[in-house]
């Protein structure tokens, strides 16, 4: 019969509308502005409003989430920042749009390379957030950040990141990627133990 399909379609949209309010009435404020509420609203069983009230509440990003790369540093004995990067250049070689520039430090006396970068730059206007640098870094020195709130008014002066903008502490890394950090720490301790054992027997 003509018109039946349209009426049915309108019924579906009406049901959607009513469910929105029904869910709100049922759950009330518990739906909003708390982690459980956000998790519920993003789960497959949700029926009502789906919206995240950014910026008051933010959708939590999963651990694997990647935005721009950053360099991990460990605190040194005197509180200085010790970059994990050894300037081996793998990230610069693997980077698909070639947006990483590394200058290796050379010892002024011997002229031999020292395993730390003198300069490290990433042009974030080229970076494609692919995560290959972090994936293939053998020293867990470059990782992908979770921070996406970086809009700015200018790019010429700010958007080539140098070590100052790139360096983030290992603590920060642990905070955003707890599982990856834990498994990498475990591997590192095992490697060091094996090395110590070899040194002991040797």
């Amino acid at each position: 019969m003509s018109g039946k399909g349209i009426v049915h379609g309108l019924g579906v949209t009406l049901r959607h509308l009513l469910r929105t309010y029904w869910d709100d009435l049922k759950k009330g404020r518990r739906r909003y502005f708390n982690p459980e509420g956000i998790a519920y609203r993003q789960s497959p069983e949700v029926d009502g409003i789906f919206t995240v009230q950014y910026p008051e509440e933010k959708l939590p990003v999963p651990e694997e989430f990647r935005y721009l790369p950053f360099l991990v540093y460990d605190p040194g004995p005197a509180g200085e920042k010790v970059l994990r990067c050894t300037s081996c250049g793998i990230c610069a070689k693997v980077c698909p749009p070639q947006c990483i520039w590394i200058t290796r430090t050379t010892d002024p006396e011997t002229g031999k390379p020292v395993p730390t970068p003198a300069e490290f730059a990433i042009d974030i206007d080229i970076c494609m957030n692919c995560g290959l640098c972090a994936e293939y870094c053998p020293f867990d020195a470059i990782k992908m950040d979770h921070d996406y709130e970086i809009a700015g008014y200018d790019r010429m002066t700010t958007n080539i990141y140098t070590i100052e903008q790139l360096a983030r502490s290992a603590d920060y890394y642990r905070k955003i990627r707890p599982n990856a950090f834990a498994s990498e720490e475990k591997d590192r301790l095992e490697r060091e133990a094996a090395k110590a054992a070899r040194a002991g027997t040797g």
Partner: protein
Amino acid sequence: MNDRLLSSTVDEAVSSRLSGLLTEDTRPGYSGYLVAPENLLEAVQILRDELGFDYLSSVTGVDYLEEDRLETVYHFYRSTGGSGLVLKSSCSRENGRIPSLTPIYPGAEFQEREAWDLLGIRFEGHPDLRRILMWEGFDGHPLRKDWREPYFEEEAKPFKSRWPDGKAVRSEEKTPFGDNVCFPPDFDPQTWQAEPETVIERLQQDEKPLADEEIQTDRIVVNLGPQHPSTHGVFRMTVMLDGETIVSLKPVMGYLHRNHEKIAERNTFLQNMPFTDRLDYLASMSNNFGYAIAVEKLMGVTPPERAEYIRVIMAELTRISSHIMTTGFLLNDLGAFFTPALYALEERELILDIFEMVSGSRMMCNYFRFGGVVRDIPEDVLGRIRQLVTDRLPRKIDELDSYLTNNEIVKTRCQGVGVLTDVQAIAYSAAGPILRASGVPYDVRRADPYSIYDRFDFDVAVQTHGDVYDRYLVRLQEMRESLKILRQALRDIPGGPVLAGKPQYQVRVPAGEAYGRVEGPKGELGFYVVSNGKPNPYRYHVRAPSFINLTSLETMCMHQKVADAVVVLGSVDIILGEVDR
């Protein structure tokens, strides 16, 4: 057609019937047959009419600079399924000519134009050999090996200026013009005159007037796009109208041509993986899949079992998210502004969440590696996929079905609009839902199974009318079939490693060629990769389904109302990242 020929293997049939015309390609790593340009048309005619290779999947070219020749590469298949046949024909780089296949396979039209535009292969007998991705008057053929872009640094990545003495510098500062441009030495901007656009002349030439013209009216030319709310991106259609009826239509593209293939030939094999994400950006996992298969063919590696299952799960989730969005936006084009699209986007968001958890990015997944995938799926994410697949998505697809399929407005606007018959669909090399809605049950997952698709029980969605409505129905059914595959894959997924061998950033790819194809949401997505043993592909070509599907757009829209052109385009489901690459 001879039954004996159809049942015999391709090689036997070809060698018995075409022995005088073809010679086997014996270069190491290469396959298929070589044919002299003067014999090409005769051989192809026999291939199509007697041997049943009625589907010309891909036409492209390779520039062998050192041997001073351009080679065109054709991939033929049978629309009944089975493996394909590769033909190659060479001409010299200077003024080389190859006969055009467009009169025999109309589906070659745009692909030959692309080969002319980017490689400078002149196709004789082509009805409309103009540039397609670049503009008329552009200097040079960019995919030739001796053509260099303004920001040229080195022949291949990684560039030496990045390490160990890398100093960050913007590319603009290193070029004479201070920008991404270069001009021929004899160019004088003061006296130079722009070449007029020829598309209007073409429209007039190819006009097919209405048979029963009651009133003599003036023709009007209307431009839809490149900035138009219904062209799904920066796509332009120029249409010539008789009243409101389309009597001639020419698509104009290239507004998003971002040089995927040229960049890819500088990249290493691995570096191309994230670039493939940006082809069909609604289905990045499918693109990864196709490229991984092509390179794996060259490398001779097989992914472990678990990785194969993960790949299938991801590819099918991608198909659902792409189809559901297409369906929502088709309604947008019909004028049902945004409500169905919003409902569809909600489901897509839930699928994107899974991609984000697994790969780290919602859209640009970059998840596949040669011989497996990047990382394993954690058990809780698998649980979430199960929840989606068993409960939420079937419910929502049924809902979509219930409020759209029998809607009278959808029916009146879609049924009988944009019809493509099965013969036309095959001739125009249409792929995916377009082909299947026209009654050709051709799905690469079934016709030429790759990965582990031969293990799953699913039906190939097919409809017979070939109109917009049937394309919608095919997509709807395909989503349900994908759910079926997902349920089986989630049930059977084994444990174990997800990558064959160690992760390595510099893979060794032996010399040779490979054509990997998958059934993406838009149709047959093929990657033609030529390696010369170096870390970078020598030639990399994408057989983009939505680009080739546009070849039949004129036929589909002919003598329809101009308002329906938008609907037809919506049903073709083009993604400009893939059309223009």
